[in-house]
C-alpha cells in the first residue's frame, strides 16, 4: 500500500510499504477514505518527539471503510467508521473509568519502559505517534490495522460526509475536552492561546458550553479571523501586550479560565522562549512553553488552566509560585476520545457544531509531504489539511 512515512526531521515521504493484516482477533482493517495532518504531527515532523523511527507510518486522524475483521471484532465489512487516535482496550481500570488515553494495555509491554521512566507511568498507545506510544502504524495510509476494533471506532451514518465526521478522531473531542477541563460557568470569560484546529474547536466548544466571552490569541490574521467568525474576541500577540489586554478585557478580575492550545512549539520572542528554542534544537529537551506561562500569569486567582497542547519533556522557569499562590486548578492530557464520540456525533448531526469551516486544503495522499511542509511553513492560510488516498494528483503546472 501507499503510506506517508517518517525519515527524519522535515523529511516525510509517501512510500510503498507492506499492507497490514489482522493479527489479534479483535482487530479490524480499515481502508482509509480521509485522514488529516494534525498539529501533533508537526511535533514529529520537527523532530521534537523522541522514538520515531525511519519508516514509521504517521497519521492518527483517519476514517474509512471496514474491509476485514478479526473473529472478535464487532464491526462489519463495509461499515464506515471514524477511529479514535487513542488506542484503548476497554477492559483495564482506566478504560473502565473512561480515562481512555491512560489505557494500561494498548501499549505493548516491551514499549512501555521509556514513558514509564520519563513520566512515572507508561502511556497508552496512539496511532502513528512514535514507539514510546506503541509504535503502531498510523492512518496517513491506504489501510490501517485497528486493534480493539470492538471498542474504539464509531460507525457513522452514510449521509454525513467524511469532512463532517473525520475530526471525531481527534481535534473535535480534543477541543471539547479542553473546554470541559476549563469547567466553564455561564458568566465566564475564557482565553484560548492558539487558533489552530484545536484552539478553534476549543473556542467553539466554550461558546456552546455557555461562556459569556471567549478571547482568542494568535498571530496569524486568517486564523484569528476564523476565531472571530465563531464569536470570539481576538488578540494578536505580536501587536498587543496580551497580559494587560486580558486584564482589561475581563474587567480587571482576570480571565476565569485559560486554555493552552499551542503546545511545546510555541512561537514568540520572549527571552525564555528563545532560550528554549535553542535547547530544543540541541536536544536538551526543554519544551517551549511561553504560551502556557503567559496563561498561568493571566488567569484569575482560583481560576482554571486547561492544557490540551502537547508537551513531552521538561520546561524551565515555570511560574510555580503563581500556580500555588493563586490557587489554580490544572487539567490536561491526551484526549479520552472514546468518551466523547457519540455525543459529539449527535452535535454534528443536529448542527450544534460545525466541523468543516477550518478545512483549508484537501490533497491526495500522494501529495502528503507537501501538505506537511505547507502546514508548517504557511500556517496562516493552511489551517487544516485533509488527505484523500483515492484522490488524483492535480496535473503538474
Amino acid at each position, binding site marked *: 500500500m501507499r503510506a506517508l512515512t517518517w525519515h527524519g526531521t522535515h523529511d516525510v515521504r509517501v512510500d510503498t510499504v507492506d499492507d497490514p493484516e489482522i493479527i489479534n482477533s479483535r482487530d479490524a482493517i480499515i481502508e482509509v477514505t480521509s485522514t488529516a495532518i494534525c498539529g501533533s504531527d508537526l511535533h514529529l515532523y520537527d523532530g521534537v518527539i523522541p522514538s520515531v523511527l525511519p519508516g514509521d507510518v504517521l497519521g492518527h486522524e483517519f476514517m474509512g471503510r471496514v474491509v476485514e475483521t478479526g473473529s*472478535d471484532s464487532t464491526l462489519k465489512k463495509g461499515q464506515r467508521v471514524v477511529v479514535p487516535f487513542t488506542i484503548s482496550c476497554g477492559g483495564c481500570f482506566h478504560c473502565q473509568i473512561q480515562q481512555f488515553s491512560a489505557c494500561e494495555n494498548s501499549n505493548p509491554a*516491551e514499549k512501555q519502559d521509556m514513558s514509564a521512566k520519563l513520566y512515572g507511568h507508561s502511556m497508552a498507545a496512539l496511532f502513528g505517534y512514535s514507539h514510546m506510544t506503541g509504535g503502531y502504524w498510523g492512518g496517513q495510509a491506504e489501510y490501517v490495522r485497528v486493534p480493539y476494533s470492538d471498542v474504539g471506532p464509531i460507525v457513522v451514518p452514510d449521509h454525513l460526509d467524511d469532512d463532517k465526521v473525520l475530526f471525531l478522531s481527534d481535534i473535535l473531542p480534543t477541543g471539547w475536552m479542553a473546554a470541559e477541563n476549563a469547567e466553564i460557568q455561564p458568566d465566564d470569560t475564557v482565553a484560548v492561546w492558539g487558533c489552530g484546529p484545536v484552539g478553534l474547536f476549543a473556542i467553539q466548544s466554550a461558546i456552546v458550553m455557555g461562556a459569556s466571552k471567549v478571547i482568542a490569541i494568535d498571530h496569524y490574521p486568517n486564523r484569528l479571523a476564523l476565531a472571530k467568525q465563531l464569536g470570539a474576541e481576538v488578540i494578536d500577540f505580536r501587536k498587543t501586550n496580551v497580559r494587560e489586554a486580558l486584564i482589561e478585557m475581563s474587567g480587571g478580575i482576570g480571565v476565569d479560565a485559560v486554555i493552552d492550545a499551542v503546545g511545546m512549539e510555541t512561537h514568540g520572542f520572549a527571552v525564555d522562549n528563545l532560550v528554549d528554542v535553542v535547547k530544543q534544537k540541541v536536544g536538551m529537551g526543554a519544551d517551549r512553553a511561553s504560551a502556557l506561562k503567559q496563561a498561568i500569569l493571566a488567569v484569575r486567582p482560583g481560576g482554571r488552566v486547561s492544557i490540551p497542547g502537547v508537551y513531552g519533556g521538561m520546561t524551565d522557569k515555570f511560574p510555580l509560585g503563581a500556580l500555588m499562590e493563586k490557587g489554580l486548578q490544572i487539567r490536561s492530557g491526551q484526549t479520552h476520545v472514546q468518551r466523547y464520540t457519540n455525543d459529539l456525533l449527535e452535535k454534528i448531526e443536529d448542527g450544534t457544531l460545525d466541523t468543516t469551516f477550518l478545512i483549508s486544503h484537501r490533497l491526495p495522499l500522494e501529495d502528503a509531504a507537501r501538505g506537511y511542509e505547507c502546514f508548517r511553513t504557511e500556517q496562516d492560510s493552511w489551517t487544516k489539511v485533509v488527505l484523500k488516498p483515492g484522490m488524483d494528483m492535480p496535473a503538474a503546472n
Partner: protein
Amino acid sequence: MTNDKQLGLAGTVAGLGLAIGGLAFGAFLSQRRKGGDDDAPFYTRKSPDSDNAVLGRTVTIRKPRAELYAFWRDFGNLPRFMENVETIRKEGDHRIWVIKAPAGQTVEIKTEVCEDVEGKRIAWRSVEGSDIETRGSVEFADAPGDRGTRVSLVMSYNPPAGNLGRTIAKLFQREPEVQARHDLKRFKGLMETGEIATSAHRKENTRAARQREKET
C-alpha cells in the same frame, strides 16, 4: 539441554523470565524486616540486604481473584505470556520449564510447587538437577471495590557465576527483571483483553514470530 556452557549460562539467566529464585532466599526473607519498619514491600528498599537479585512487581488486574489464580496454577498457560518460556510440562510432581536461550538453544529448569494457597498464593522453586537455583511466588489479593485483583510477583535468583551471567544476559537484552516485568504486564493484558498487545502490522513481524524465526 545446551552443549555450550557459556551460552547455557546466558540462556539460563536470559530465559529466566518468571522462573527465578535463589539459594539464600529464605535467609533473605528472614532478614527483610531488619533494615526498616515501614510498610513498603521489602523489594523496594534502597539498599538490598542480600546479594541475591530480587525483584517484585504488582499489577492490578480487573478480573476475579479465583480466575487469575486458576489460570496461573495451570502452569501450561504461562508460556502464553512469558515470552522466553517455550513450554512448561508436567513430570510427576515436578514441572519442566523449557526456556529459550540465544542461538536457538533451550535450557530446562525443574521446579516444584512449594506453597499453594487456593485463590491466594502460589510459590515454586527449582530442585536438584536444574542448571540454576530459582524461586518465585505470585500472590493474589482483592483490590478495593470493583478494581479486581492485585497480583504481586516476587522472584529471587542467584546470578550464575556472579555478575558474569547477568552481564551476558544484558548483552542479549533479556535482563530477568525487565523480562519479568514485561511478562507480568502481558499477563495482565491477556487477562483483561484476551490478547497480547502488538504494534506489528504483519503476522511475521510480531515479537513472537520474530523470535521463532531467530531460533530456526
